[in-house]
């Protein structure tokens, strides 16, 4: 049975995790035959070109919404400029919500899947008619709890049909907090290569934004501390970001030039991964780190910091990879060294990894969405 599916996020144009996941999901559902509409509440300041998409893609607010003025209180309420600004904001919001309701009203049966908390304020205000409302969180419970989003999540998400989390652990945490509508949904891999890596290349690989939360400085430290023991191995970190300069300096100061490379964005990450043997995840925070799953899909043996429940959702220590305590550089180094030294172990973990991340393959995840749609229809 095909359905109308609306995917809503703050904006769908940035080069970020949520945007990639949303477009990925939209494509999958579209190819399955559902009538997909992707809605960004507003434009991004730094849009990335996602190319032409076969599904409908709208921006709700062409112009950014006039903000709610901050001067509350007696003085603010009497000031005519403040009053005007307030009125403008409310009117714009009302109009936008109206446009959203109109879009929903066109639909027959299906669901609205809201990907971010800020966007949820609009969805909650709109008339959803026959459509089910599904909230999807892309961060861990702890990240939400420690942020300004917590109060809004409390208000907006208890009554939706389902609140989807990325991991079982996070779903349990929300359930313990009295959310009686939790469910788990994985993101899907954007690729599942036909052939795995042959694990012959002496390459340790990492991929992600060169920003502090990815912890690449620790990875470089870890690699540096064992580089002499494995003289033929190199570390490649694919990606771009604000820390490029600092990381390059770190490589230089540790005398690792040539051993550690920062090749920038990968043209075809799949090829690069398959040409490596070990995948390293050195992040400080993560939601559900799909980069790790991608590495495993290519049959790589991986080492990861246990920095979020999402890590253990993907990899099991001692079964299909190595998981070490977060931020612990010596432990990371040790894990890398083990995999670099022991080819049999690499192969064993690599093979197990490739099997176990099948559940993140597009067809498996799509089946999960179909089951979810059936469930909310009951």
């Amino acid at each position, binding site marked *: 049975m095909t359905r109308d599916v609306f995917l809503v996020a703050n904006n769908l144009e940035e080069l970020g995790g949520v945007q990639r996941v949303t477009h990925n999901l939209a494509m999958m559902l579209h190819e399955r035959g559902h009538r997909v509409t992707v809605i960004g509440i507003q434009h991004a300041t730094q849009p990335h070109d996602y190319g032409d998409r076969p599904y409908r893609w709208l921006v709700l607010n062409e112009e950014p919404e006039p903000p709610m003025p901050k001067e509350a209180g007696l003085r603010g309420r009497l000031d005519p400029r403040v009053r005007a600004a307030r009125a403008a904001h409310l009117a714009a919001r009302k109009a936008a919500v109206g446009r959203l309701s109109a879009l929903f009203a066109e639909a027959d049966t299906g669901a609205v899947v809201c990907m971010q908390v800020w966007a949820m304020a609009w969805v909650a205000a709109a008339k959803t*008619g*026959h459509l089910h409302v599904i909230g999807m969180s892309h961060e861990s419970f702890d*990240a939400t709890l420690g942020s300004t989003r917590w109060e809004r999540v409390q208000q907006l998400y208890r009554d*939706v049909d389902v609140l989807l989390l990325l991991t079982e652990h996070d779903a349990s945490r929300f359930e*313990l907090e*009295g959310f*009686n509508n939790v469910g788990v949904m994985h993101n899907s891999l954007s690729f599942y290569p036909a052939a795995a890596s042959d694990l012959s290349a002496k390459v340790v690989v990492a991929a992600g934004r060169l920003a502090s939360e990815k912890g690449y400085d620790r990875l470089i430290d870890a690699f540096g501390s064992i580089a002499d023991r494995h003289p033929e191995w190199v570390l490649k970190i694919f990606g771009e970001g604000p820390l490029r300069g600092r990381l390059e300096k770190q490589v230089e100061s540790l005398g690792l030039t040539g051993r550690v490379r920062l090749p920038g964005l990968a043209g075809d990450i799949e090829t690069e991964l398959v040409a490596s043997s070990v995948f390293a995840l050195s992040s*400080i925070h993560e939601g559900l780190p799909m980069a790790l799953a991608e590495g495993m899909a290519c049959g790589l043996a991986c080492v990861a910091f246990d920095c979020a429940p999402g890590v253990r959702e993907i990899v099991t220590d001692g079964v299909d990879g190595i998981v070490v*305590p977060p931020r612990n550089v010596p432990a990371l180094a040790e894990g890398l060294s083990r995999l670099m030294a022991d080819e049999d172990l690499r192969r064993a973990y690599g093979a197990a990894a490739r099997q176990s991340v099948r559940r993140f393959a597009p067809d498996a995840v799509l089946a999960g969405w179909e089951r979810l749609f059936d469930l*909310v229809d009951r």
Partner: protein
Amino acid sequence: MPRRTVPGPPSAPDVSVVVIGYNDRANLPNAVRSVLDQTLRNLEVIVVDDCSTDGSGEVAEELAREDPRVTVLRLPENSGGCSRPRNAGLDLARAPFVMFLDSDDVYERHACKNLLIEAERTGADVVAGRVVRVNLTRDKESLWAKDLFGARAVYHGVRDNPMIFFDPLSTNKIYRREFLDRHGIRFPEGVHYEDSLFSTKVYCLAETIAIIPNLVYLWRVVEDAEELSITQRRYEFENFRDRVAVHRMMDTFLREHGGADLKVYKDFKFVRHDLKLYLSDLAHRDEEYQHKFMRLAADYCATISDETLAMVYPLERICVHLIRRLDVAETLRTVDYLRYGFKLSTDLVERDGKVYWTAKYLDTPEDRAVMDVTEMGFHRLPFSRIDLHNQVTSARVVGSRLHLEGSVVNQLGRLDPPGKLSLSVSLRNRGRPSRRTHRVDDWTLAGNRLHYRVVVDLSRAVGALDAQVPLWDLRLEITKDGATNVTPFSIDPAMVSGHPIRVRGRLGGLAPGYLVPFVTPRLNLGFQQGDDTTVTQVAGQANRLGIRARMSVRWRSSKAVGNNPALKALAYKAFRRLPVKKGLVVFESHLGKQYSDSPRYIYEAAVAAGLDRLGLDPVWSYARRTEGFPTDVRLVRRESWRYHLDLARAEFWVDNQGFPRVFGRRRETTYIQTWHGTPLKRMGFDSPALERASASVRRQHKAMMRRWSALLVPSEYFVETFVKSYGYDGELVRHGLPRNDLLVRGVDDDWVEAKKRELGLPTDRRLVLYCPTFRDRARRLETPYELPLDLEQMRRALGDDVHLMLRTHYLDTFRLSARFAPFATDVSRHHDVTELMLIADVLVTDYSSVMFDFANTGKPMVFYTYDYEDYVRDERGTYIDLPDVAPGPVVLTNDELTAALARVDDDVEGYRDRYAAFRERFCSYETGHAAEHVVKEFFEGRSLDGRAGS
């Protein structure tokens, strides 16, 4: 979210919900709508009206017209119960699963779906979900039977978890239709408490029972306003008789269906829960009634096995034995304990080194075994903590004077000489800490009773009526040898008429004021403010206000006139232009909450060195209460105008956390920061919060740090972690922490002995201090703090040798049940944890920095890290790996903790080396003279014009 319209009646509903009602037309639509609004839409609702006469039937039919999923069945005759309507509804139900709901309750929005999904997933015959009891009278919610619904569970038969018998409801469950039909399980008609019998049948026969932790059902309860009135009481006997009859039916059923062994658990619930409900009424009845009642109860108690009695609390066991002996008076005394706040209205008796509940029934060894309450430790309680039951025997009001006569139980001869007794009466408003006391002179001690007569002029006693909190408590205070026991006035509700007593009103007596006496749920005498037209307030409502009392005190202080923080901040800037006041030192500890920690010890060292000689003028900041602060030093209220002035002009600031951000430090002020703990968890810029924070937030943090002139450090580890992570680059004082001086040097035994007596702690036992850290993640969550100790189990294993001191972090509050008074003391509010560490023999902690302080004493430590996985895996992460460095055993469960405490002496040798290494690493700079050092370095040798060293 708006209600969705429904596309026609379901041809194959997943769930049938039977809603029953009788003369409840106001609530019926809410119940039905809570089903129609379920996220599970494919259901049918069968409303069964039990021949109502108030139009409920018509209301139901209107609902059916609005939504085709609703069917209405109107019974031709009223059945007088729930069973017939439910059975009738069940007959009509078409779905493979069925649920039941009463007209005055509601479902949670996802209840049906969650129960259905679990039933399908597990194949269970019955699935139960969490219940919240909403007390509409008291405006309170409570989790009902919460131990049962802590986590998802699947049981293959009730024997997997017989405690399920504590949940006899049928409205929080989903049942597999085929299971009910196969066994012919229906609601028993013509019987009250049919839910219990129905549930017993289900539990006995179900092969699979599932539990989900999700809230499914909101059980709304309106407490009868006249709970203690005569009309209500009239039906008590019938209710009890019906309950016993149902239990007999349950027993028969269990016996006939292979469940005879389950009676043990079913009876556990009877003793723990059902029995007590009916006993309290007995006191006011005539002998004939009492005898009839006890006969009925005793007959049934004869069927309760020793196995059940071994499971219950000692007092519950005693209660059952006394019922069997048909002893009304003694039974009621156990009820006082079990139902009314652990009151000891009995006369305990000591004999042959044991303590018995009563002197009667001690003839045979078996009897004595039952009555033996030695392990409960009443005899070991200090004078101030033992319950000296005070019963009012006569109460009269003349004008505004209250004439009371009563007697106090001279429990275990505690009131006997030597030691002079003095009595007084006090009246305290619940919103204020202060109280007014009046001496009582008219009393005599005769054997095991102290009789008194007192006249309280309420008009004078009250002083001023309170604008916020209208509740007053009356207390009798008995002092002997410097220790005071405070006891309420227990009173028979029949004695309290509820007539208002005229007292002086507010506005200096211009407005009339009245106090209305009332009886608290624990049957104590209290007063409530009222006006001329006030109807008698009753216990339940009064307590609701009591709960708000706590809130109102806070509200009051923040809304006071002339309390504008922005204005004060401006004034502060102006004050700073005034000349520095030489010698003025502002001390603050934990944001003014306590007189404690390093600031305290620096202050005391300064006092010892001579304030005049040093030319110092100290002032202490307090947040709200001045208790615990020294009386001979000037105190200033935190964030008051004076506080702003003092900080602006002070020569020294000394604190352990950080004065409010708005206080920039002027050049002439020296800010000595003592900090309050060595970090285990990543902090400062290492912590995710600050790592992710915006540049301006980080700048703010750095600015706060730059205010410090000097930072005291206890170890190089502290420098590597705290100092580095905050990027502090000012002066470091590597001389240890003043608060640890006494821990390093030790104190003499006399001091320890005296402190124990001051705190009401026993001197003949090992003192174990349990001091867990604050649970970060719990801070914003709904779940209240729960002590992770099984006190009952610990008491049984360790009670002879150990007394626990419980100190939770000041941001977690919990209530220690009076039941454990002989075994454990709540010292969370004691202002100085250093004192507790000095008198403790063993420390139990998890991740609290007290471990670093306590290590200075060399005394044993045990680490109870029941949530270690969660703690280290959270975002912040730790600097060190606790199991690697711990100088004592690291245990994960309560059982392991008890075992570790039992063998703590044996373990000392084995941990000697680790302990030494621990001290070396985390206490390296401790000298035991840190406070003196600070005084010498900073306060001495200042130039005459007062300019500080830095």
